[in-house]
């Protein structure tokens, strides 16, 4: 690896990550009054996270079968009340690991 290349890239990545993070929160300070925008902001978090999960989750383990089973396990656990999200993640990893011996 070319040291200069990876160091400059690291700096560029940092700038491109920090700017979208700090500009809106710092300068967009007034209250949203519009009911539409409020509703939009109400739905945005679930929409972002869901779009990131699907379909990427099916290719996350390098094997579509184990990944699909892992997804199903995560969904079932998530629907059971009182199970914290990190337990959902850890149990799914263990299941996928176990399955990887079979497929």
């Amino acid at each position, binding site marked *: *690896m070319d040291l200069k*290349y*990876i160091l400059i*890239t*690291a*700096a*560029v*990545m940092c700038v*491109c*990550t*920090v700017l*979208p*993070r*700090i*500009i*809106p*929160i710092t300068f*967009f300070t007034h*209250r*949203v009054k519009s*009911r*539409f925008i*409020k*509703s*939009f902001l*109400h*739905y*945005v*978090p*679930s*929409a*972002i*996270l*869901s*779009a*990131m*999960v*699907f*379909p990427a*989750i099916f290719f*996350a*383990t390098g*094997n579509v079968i184990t*990944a699909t089973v892992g*997804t199903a396990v*995560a*969904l079932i656990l*998530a*629907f059971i*009340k009182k*199970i*914290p*999200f*990190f337990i*959902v*993640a*850890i149990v*799914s990893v*263990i299941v996928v*690991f176990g399955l990887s011996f079979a497929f």
Partner: protein
Amino acid sequence: MKQKIGTTFLKGMRDSIPVAIVYFVVSFTFGVTIAKYGFPCWYATLLSAINFTSVGQFTGVRMMIESVAIYEIGLAILVVNLRYILCGISISQKLDTKSKWKRMLIGMFIADELYAVIANKQKVTFKYYMGLVPLPYICWIAGSTAGAYMDALLPERLQMAMGIALYCMFIGLIIPPAMRDKRLFFTIGLAAGISCLLYFTPYLNRISFGFRIVIAAVVAAVVSALLFPVSGIDDNSTYVRETLQDETSPQNEDETGDLPASDTEVS
């Protein structure tokens, strides 16, 4: 007064412990990736310390392996991070402080999972967010460092299995709020559907990851907002119910104290 602020900071720290655990696992995977592709191990530490973002870091590394031009990597990272603009505006509505410096400091540490922790809260204090940050940040750096130095020790199967951790955590974060507010299931399904459509349809699949997420999320949220507009009064009563359900701890006065304020804002 002092105690109240302290509680808020500590409450943030307590709420961040699960995130910190998952962060360790995810960044460990990142560290392993870095070592596998022949980057120096300290590079994993450096990237994690100055970026603190999962998707962006994986994207950058994948492009560096193919020696992509630096400006193209920067552009890709910007697009991937467009979602932070949405997160930033959303957090901005919940914050108690008008101080630009405090807001900027919070902005530096916006992350998907921390955002998910506060996404269901109506109000967030500066102290609370500052309490959320340290443990996940330290675990993020520690995890990627450990992963980079220990990649040879881990069986390949386990490394592959760990790839799913991040996504399963997201599932664990979006389902519970949707069970309280069924309209969110529509949003989740629509966003997932559009994202899959863009990914699998010929021609459309040339859209980069970042744009795909932004398009899917914006379309799904706009359609949901048009079909099921949120009425302020509804919103608040759900919030009260949630507070009563989730926060059984008695030292919760600061949050309930915020209610009248948000009440006036809504009307």
